[in-house]
């Protein structure tokens, strides 16, 4: 049946019948092939300075205005005015709208976006830079900045061919403004193929304890020599996370339950990491992780990042949910990581989380939207979101340069989702702007971005990796 559905959707006839066609997405640590067009509203320079720091060449963005339009005649001899087109296609459009304070400024944003809507290459990028609306001052300025979100989310839904649109909000009007070095990792992620399945999202980049060093910002292997712990690493998304972070240089400690040891060993061996079998709900789980790290990486060995990926589902309608189904999901998906964090955050514990460390949780669109038969799971995943926000706002962690973030995956193609009923699965795959399911690597790349040493100014964020799914949006 799955094959039949695939045939129906990938058959050449399908396109003519109007079945949405999935584009093969650009992935990995690669910039778009075409040029990056940059434009600004109201004199903002942060975006351009950030691109300069990254060494990304830019060209001036076209601006659609009545006087720049050209006449075009279609096959039926009808003539109409169309925006000036980019020669060839562009890889990305970056709009610095940090200076946008009036409704008139939004017209400039439109003018910048319009030529790009048909001028982007496959898997092209639209990145709009704004400020946190509540810091914008006058009500009109706040409204203008908030309007950017409506624009970007709509653009994400209109773009085709695997292109994405995202809005980055920075602190500019506050005492501690975001620097180009702090914004760099976010820009690079959004331009790279790594953000393939992230679209229609709003990210906040603030100001961290210290500016990332130039070599951190430009590192091809940002985790080189750093210890990263990944729970639930034996299969599925966790295995993808372990592999992706290892590709970027991480010394991975792959954690999973002893029963999953066969898959765990395979993953650990394939990336030259170590397998640590333990039940994360055990009282001493955090202590055992720290002891393993201290032992294997020496007295100075500390954890750069821990990714709390391990999770379970025990789906049942709430009418049929007993305390065991309820409790086991909350215990594994939420309580365990709270306990482990408490242990690893002890600055004096050998093998604990290092200053400048990263904690990354895995929430879910189910945690945002809720899901029938998943009250327990949604509780745990919504709990992760609350946890991340609270810890992201904790000044004691900020002082140590520790950031806490989460990803919220939407429909990801795994062994688990492969067992879903065909119709449900097809719907889940299609109801997002990219019209396809994501891959474990898409979640992993996003986690890699949040865990990157250069992402020091990103904390308390929950970033959806859902292809702009309509669920919970």
């Amino acid at each position: 049946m799955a094959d039949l559905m695939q045939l129906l959707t990938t058959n050449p006839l399908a396109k003519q019948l109007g079945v949405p066609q999935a584009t093969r997405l650009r992935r990995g640590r690669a910039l778009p092939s075409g040029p990056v067009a940059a434009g600004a509203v109201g004199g903002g320079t942060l975006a351009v300075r950030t691109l300069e720091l990254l060494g990304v060449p830019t060209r001036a963005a076209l601006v659609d205005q009545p006087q720049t339009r050209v006449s075009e005649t279609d096959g039926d001899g009808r003539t109409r005015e169309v925006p000036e087109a980019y020669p060839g296609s562009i890889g990305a459009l970056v709009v610095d709208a940090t200076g946008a304070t009036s409704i008139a400024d939004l017209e400039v944003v439109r003018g910048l976006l319009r030529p790009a809507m048909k001028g982007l290459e496959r898997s092209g990028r639209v990145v709009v830079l704004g400020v946190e609306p509540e810091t914008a001052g006058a009500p009109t300025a706040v409204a203008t900045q908030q309007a950017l979100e409506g624009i970007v989310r709509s653009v994400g839904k209109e773009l085709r061919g695997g292109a994405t649109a995202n809005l980055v909000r920075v602190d500019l009007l506050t005492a501690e403004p975001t620097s180009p070095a702090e914004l760099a990792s976010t820009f690079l992620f959004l331009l790279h193929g790594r953000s393939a399945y992230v679209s229609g999202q709003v990210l906040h980049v603030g100001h961290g304890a210290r500016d990332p060093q130039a070599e951190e910002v430009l590192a091809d292997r940002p985790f080189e020599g750093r210890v990263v712990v990944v729970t639930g690493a034996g299969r599925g998304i966790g295995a993808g996370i372990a592999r992706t972070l290892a590709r970027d240089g991480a010394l991975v400690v792959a954690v999973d339950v002893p029963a999953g040891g066969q898959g765990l060993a395979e993953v650990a061996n394939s990336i030259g990491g170590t397998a640590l079998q333990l039940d994360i709900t055990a009282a001493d789980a955090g202590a055992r992780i720290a002891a393993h790290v201290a032992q294997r990486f020496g007295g100075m060995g500390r954890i750069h990042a821990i990714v709390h990926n391990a999770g379970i589902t025990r789906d049942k309608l709430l009418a049929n949910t007993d305390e065991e189904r309820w409790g086991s999901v909350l215990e594994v998906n939420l309580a365990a990581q709270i306990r482990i964090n408490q242990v690893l955050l002890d600055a004096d514990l050998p093998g604990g989380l290092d200053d400048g460390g990263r904690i990354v949780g895995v929430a879910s669109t189910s945690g945002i939207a809720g899901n029938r038969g998943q009250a327990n799971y949604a509780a745990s995943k919504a709990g992760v979101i609350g946890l991340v926000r609270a810890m992201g706002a904790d000044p004691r962690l900020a002082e140590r340069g520790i950031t806490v973030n989460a990803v919220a995956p939407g429909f990801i193609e795994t062994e688990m989702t492969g067992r879903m009923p065909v119709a449900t699965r097809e719907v889940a795959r299609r109801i997002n702007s990219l019209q396809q399911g994501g891959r474990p690597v898409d979640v992993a790349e996003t986690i890699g971005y949040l865990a990157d040493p250069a992402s020091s100014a990103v904390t308390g964020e929950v970033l959806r990796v859902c292809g702009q799914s309509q669920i919970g949006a």
Partner: protein
Amino acid sequence: MPDQLTDAVILGGNRIPFGKAGGAYADASNQAMLTSTLDGLVARFGLAGERLGEVAAGAVLKHARDFNLTREAVLGSALAATTPAYDLQQACGTGLETVIQVANKIRLGQVDSGVAGGVDSASDAPIAVGEGLRKALLGASRARTPMARAKALAAVRPGDLAPETPRNAEPRTGLSMGEHQALTAREWGITREAQDELAAASHHQLAAAWDAGFFDDLATGFLRLSRDEGLRPETSVDKLAGLSPVFGKGEGATMTAGNSTPLSDGAALVLLGSPQWAAEHRLPALARFVDAEVAAVDYVSGDEGLLMAPAYAVPRLLARQGLTLDDIDRFEIHEAFASTVLATLAAWESEEFCTGRLGLDGPLGTVDRSRLNVHGSSLAAGHPFAATGGRIVATLAKMLHDLGPGSRGLISVCAAGGQGVVAILEGC
């Protein structure tokens, strides 16, 4: 070669949960089990791509095609292909003998690291063709003309087509191991009740160890098993008392399926190294390999019980090390049968045996039962023949490490052919 011997230390181990014959691993080959166990070990210690000194392992029930079983497992594993390997076989003593072999090479400085252990499948056992058919096939392969080939094959009689069933019997006596042990149990007056008590304790203690997470860093799940398949946490002396004897005859028969080890499938490996190699790899030493001894008895003439060789090996080893039973903190006596353990303990308590057979001045002594097989043994875990030594060495090394430096452990494994392999480890 160095003038001084270096230490050989045990750094850890890995086994797969043991399966019941015909159970979860019914379709798993020795090579598949050994390779997976090796990969689990490599992953635990982060050794992917490393060249180790050597890997030594073996299997008791072995297919002819598996002539290079361990080397094939290494080639299929995440270890560097430049890691040498060989097979070794000493019946149920195989696993422990490989540990002795690798430890000795480390002590001599010939290798700095190694993996030792074994694998066995009672499910995937080789089946041989009858002698008549085998001779005829060999004759046909030597024949030079079609006529001669036809003539050679014509010698096959219908009776030759029946395969030779694998038997768990001693070639020289025709008695199975259980039948041999039944004779020993009767000779030492080992009661049914004592055997069932030992069996129940084995199950309860092994289950408690699994529950406590003791095996989290000693075992890796394989196929659908995450615990030993034959483990019966809920068994009791009462339940075991209900089973009928399967070995021995008549009134005095005491040995049942409950107090004898079942046929099993599984693999177990141990990682050893020199202290220097361990330090370079940031791996903590669990225990030091101290010494080992192998004894053999003349069971063919009936002079001694088939599985009584450890009763001789242990006193010789203790004497060489200047130790007594009281110096031992943990005893690991392989439970081939509950009565094997009990007969061995009885022999050491017997003045007649110790003076007459061992030439001692009096009884060797009494084993403190609270120090015996404290996390269960083969009755509960199962006994894939060549895998048992690796299971015991890794388990004991971890126990000794938990007890602290200087703690001592004794391992005793009886084997077919009237042999017994024993060793002493010391906690680090």
